């Protein structure tokens, strides 16, 4: 397995992350990035809105 394949990815937007922003775990099965956690918990709204993303 290469380094790239081992990298953690946000389950929601698929961006590369070092650890899950919700639980800080580096091997989280439901890993999320900071932006997705912020949106999820109503700290911010997504831009562009999810419906407009391709």
């Amino acid at each position, binding site marked *: 397995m290469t380094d790239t394949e081992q990298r953690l990815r946000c389950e929601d937007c698929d961006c590369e992350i070092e650890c*899950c*922003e*919700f*639980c*800080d*775990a580096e091997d*989280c099965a*439901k890993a999320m990035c900071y932006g997705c*956690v912020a949106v*999820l*918990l*109503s*700290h*911010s709204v997504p831009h562009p809105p999810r419906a407009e993303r391709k």
Partner: protein
Amino acid sequence: MYDYEAGKLDWLAAGLPSEGTNAERPRAGDVARKDAPTCTLDERLGDVRERARTAGWTVAVVVNAERVVLGLLREKELDGDPERSVEQSMRPGPSTFRPHVDVAEMAHYMTEHDLTSSPITTSDGRLVGILLRDDAVRIAHEEHRHD
């Protein structure tokens, strides 16, 4: 009339009072335990561990003089070398959550991520308390029964 320039989300994130139907729902800041043990960077880990465990806690929050959260000592970190300092042992910059977040949402995601406790802070990083998953799940179930 008061113009809060930082905006509505920041008002809620600071744990300030709100009105309306949603304001009656239990929030993370309401349920968070305000008696969570705190410590400073220069303390000895062994002293903090003893203080936390005597009070029945498996977590301690590292704060500065203004109660801004700097780090977290979960069970794994508390079990470290008692002679080391808190600064050497802590998990720096932990994920924190705002007081206005719905408890049911927190319960759901804490369960999904197997997180037993989460620090609740204002938007400027000051500690409000520690939300325990067991508390969040219990309150969420009670709320669900009332709906």
